[in-house]
C-alpha cells in the first residue's frame, strides 16, 4: 500500500508547481483570461514543450504513457494557478477520444499536432436539451454518398471558439437517448455550415454554442466505428470527470489555506477573526472536507486506472463530494473573507467561481447521487 508519488509523478508535480510559482501569478492569469482567446498561446507552447500535453498518450503516438494518477497530479497542481489554458478540452476531452478511437491516419492528422501544441481540439459532448445525459444526442449525421451531412446544435462546448477541430457525437441510428447509434466525427472548425458563437464563462474560461447546418464531412472523419461511439465517449467523460475533480480538490485546498491564513491576519473587535470559535469549527469542517475529497480522489483514480468494477461508483462518489462539500467549502471561504471575499480583486473569489463551475460539469451533485443511489454494490 503506497499513496506516495512515483518519481515521474513527483517530477511532474514539481515542474508544474515551479511553473505556477514563477510564471503564472494571479495577475498574469487574469490578463490571459481577459485576452482575446482567453488563454496564452505562449503558455500553451510551453505546456507542449514541457511534455504536459503528451502525458496520457501512448509512447507510439508520441505520448508519455501516463495514467489517471499522473493526470491527477498534474490537474491538482494546475488548479493552484487557476490555469486557463485549454488542457481539459484538448488533452483530456479531445485527446481522450482520439487516443481511443482514432486510426493511424487520424492520429497523424489530429493527435500528434495536438500534442505538439499546433492544433487545438475539443469535444462537443453536450447539447442544449441534454442536461447531463451523454446519450441525449439529437445532432444527426446522415449518409450522402461517401460523405456525411451533420445537422444540429452543440451547447457550451469548452474552448469551442479557438478549436481547430471539433469532435462531434452525432446520431447515425436509434432513438433519442439510445446509447447505440452515436457516431463520433472529427470536424474542422472552418467547415462550411458550421457556426460557432463563442463566449467567456463566469470562471474565466471560454465556451461556445456550435450550430451544424448541413456540414459535410468525408467518411475518414469518422472516429472509431459507426453507431458505436458511446463507449469511448463515456470513458472519456469519466476521465474528464476525474480530471476536474482533481482540479477541484486542488482548489479546495487552496481556499482552505487562504481562509485560515486570512483569519489569522484579519482583526475585528481587536482580535484575529480566527480566534472566534464558530469560525474555527467551520475551518475545521473545511479541512475535513479537503481530507475526505483527497481520499475519495485517490480511490477513484486507482479504481479508474485499474479498470475495477468500482470505477463508475468511485467517479460518481468523488464528483458528488466535490459538488456538495466543495460548494459549502467555497461558500464558507467567501463568508469568512467577508466583504473582501466578494471582490473581483481578490483571487479567492475566482477560485470559488471555478470550483462552482466544476460542481456542474459532467453532472451535478443530484445527478451523481442518483447514480449512487441506484447502484448495486
Amino acid at each position: 500500500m503506497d499513496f506516495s508519488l512515483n518519481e515521474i509523478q513527483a517530477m511532474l508535480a514539481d515542474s508544474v508547481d515551479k511553473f505556477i510559482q514563477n510564471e503564472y501569478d494571479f495577475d498574469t492569469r487574469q490578463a490571459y483570461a481577459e485576452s482575446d482567446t482567453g488563454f496564452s498561446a505562449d503558455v500553451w507552447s510551453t505546456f507542449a514543450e514541457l511534455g504536459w500535453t503528451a502525458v496520457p498518450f501512448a509512447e507510439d503516438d508520441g505520448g508519455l504513457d501516463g495514467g489517471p494518477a499522473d493526470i491527477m497530479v498534474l490537474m491538482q497542481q494546475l488548479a493552484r494557478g487557476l490555469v486557463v489554458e485549454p488542457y481539459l478540452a484538448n488533452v483530456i476531452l479531445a485527446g481522450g477520444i482520439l487516443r481511443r478511437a482514432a486510426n493511424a491516419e487520424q492520429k497523424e492528422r489530429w493527435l500528434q499536432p495536438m500534442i505538439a501544441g499546433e492544433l487545438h481540439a475539443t469535444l462537443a459532448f453536450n447539447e442544449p436539451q441534454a442536461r447531463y445525459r451523454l446519450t441525449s444526442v439529437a445532432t444527426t449525421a446522415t449518409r450522402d454518398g461517401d460523405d456525411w451531412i451533420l445537422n444540429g446544435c452543440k451547447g457550451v462546448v469548452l474552448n469551442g471558439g479557438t478549436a481547430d477541430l471539433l469532435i462531434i457525437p452525432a446520431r447515425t441510428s436509434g432513438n433519442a437517448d439510445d446509447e447505440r447509434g452515436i457516431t463520433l466525427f472529427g470536424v474542422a472548425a472552418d467547415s462550411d455550415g458550421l457556426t460557432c458563437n463563442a463566449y467567456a464563462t463566469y470562471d474565466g474560461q471560454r465556451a461556445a454554442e456550435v450550430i451544424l447546418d448541413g456540414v459535410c464531412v468525408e467518411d475518414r472523419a469518422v472516429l472509431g466505428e459507426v453507431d458505436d461511439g458511446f463507449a469511448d465517449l463515456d470513458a472519456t467523460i469519466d476521465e474528464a470527470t476525474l480530471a476536474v475533480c482533481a482540479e477541484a480538490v486542488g482548489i479546495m485546498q487552496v481556499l482552505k489555506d487562504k481562509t485560515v491564513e486570512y483569519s489569522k491576519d484579519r482583526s475585528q473587535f481587536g482580535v484575529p477573526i480566527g480566534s472566534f470559535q464558530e469560525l474555527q469549527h467551520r475551518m475545521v469542517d473545511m479541512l475535513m472536507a479537503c481530507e475526505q475529497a483527497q481520499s475519495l480522489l485517490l480511490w477513484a483514480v486507482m479504481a479508474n486506472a485499474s479498470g475495477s468494477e468500482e470505477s463508475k461508483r468511485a467517479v460518481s462518489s468523488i464528483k458528488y463530494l466535490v459538488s456538495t462539500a466543495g460548494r459549502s467549502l467555497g461558500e464558507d471561504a467567501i463568508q469568512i473573507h467577508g466583504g473582501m471575499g466578494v471582490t473581483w480583486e481578490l483571487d479567492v473569489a475566482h477560485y470559488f467561481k471555478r470550483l462552482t463551475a466544476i460542481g456542474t460539469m459532467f453532472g451535478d451533485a443530484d445527478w451523481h447521487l442518483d447514480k449512487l443511489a441506484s447502484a448495486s454494490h
Partner: protein
Amino acid sequence: MHVTFSEADLAFQEEVRTFFRDEYPDEIREAVSSGEELPREMQIRWQKILFEKGWAGINWPTEHGGTGWTPVQKYIYAREEGNANAPVIVPFGLNMVGPVIYTFGSEAQKNRFLPDILASNTWWCQGYSEPGAGSDLASLKTKGDLVGDHWVVNGTKTWTTLGQFADWIFCLVRTTSDVARRQEGISFLLIDMKSPGVTVKPIILLDGTHEVNEIHFDNVEVPVENLVGEEGKGWTYGKVLLQHERTNSANTFRSEYRLRKLREQAATSVRGAPPLADDKNFMRRLAAVEVELKGLEYTELRTLAAVSSGKAPGPESSFLKIKGTEIQQAIDTLYMDAAGYYALPYRADPSVGEGTETLTALRYFNFRKATIYAGSNEIQKNIIAKHVLGL
C-alpha cells in the same frame, strides 16, 4: 386567531394591486425581469412615479409628505410590490437618511433636504463601513476636525453602494477621539459629493459588476450646518438605520415571487429538455425552501401583529435578516442549478440559454454578499445569543 384583513385594508389592497397593474410601465417591468441591473434613469423614473402617487415616503409621517400607513398597510403594499416584481427602491435617501433627518435633524435641514429626497431629485449613498472594519462598525477611523465653521473630514469609506451615482453621502465620522466607549464621539454628517477632496473609486464585485465604491475624503470641508443632531451622538442615529436595513433584508415577497416563477419555469420545457418538474430531487429542494419561506412569512406576520397591537419590535430584525438572506441564497442556488451548463456563460449573447439562465450564476455570486453586509449573519447570531437568549 386569524389573518384576514379588515374591509378598509382589503380596499387598500385593491388600490395597490390596481396601481401596480396599471401604472407600472412595461418598459421598466421588462428591464427588471431581464435580471440585469436597472439603469439609473429607469430607477429614478419609477421612484418619481411613486412620488407622484404619494407613495414615496412609505415609512414617513404625513407631515413630511409620507404615507402615514399603518403596519398592516405597509405589509400589504410590500406584498403587492413583491408580487409585481417592481423595482427595489434605492433605500439610502427614502428609507435611511430621510428618517434620520426628519427624526433628529434641524428645521433647516428638514426644509432643505426632505423634499428632494421624497421626489428622488437627489441620489444619496451611505458612508458607514471603512476598509478593515467590516462588521466592527464602531472601529471607524474617518475623522472630522472642527475648523471655523467647517468640519474638515479625512478618511475612507467603503462598500458604498451605488455611490458612483450619488449627489450626497451621509457619513459616520469620528469627531471626538478621547472617549470612554468607542461608540461615543461619532457624528452624523451630510456631505455633498461635489465637495473638493471627495473621490469615488469603483470596487468591482466577483460577478464583474460595479455596484459598490470606496469614497476618499481628503480635507473635505463640510459646513457645520450639515451636522445632524448633536455632535458625538451619531452612533445612536446610525443604529436606527441598521435596524431598518436588517428588517428590510428579509425580502420575503421578493423571494416568494422568485420561487413562484421557478415553479412555473420547472413545469415547462427549457431548451427542449424534459421539464425539471419531472426531477423529484430538484422539486424536493424547491419545496424545502418554500417551507422555510412560508415560515418566515408567518414570522413576519407575527411580528407585524405584535407591532400593530403596540408592542415594540425587538431583535426580531436579526432573525429576519438571517433567515431572509439564507432563503434568498437558497433560491439563487436553485436557479443556478436549474440552469445547469447554461449558468456558465458570462454575459453571453442573449441567444445563449433561455430567459435569465446565463445570469443565474452571476446573481448567485453577487448575493454571497447578502450574508455578509448589514452586519454579517454571524454578528446577527451573536446579537440574538446576547439579547434574546441572555448568553
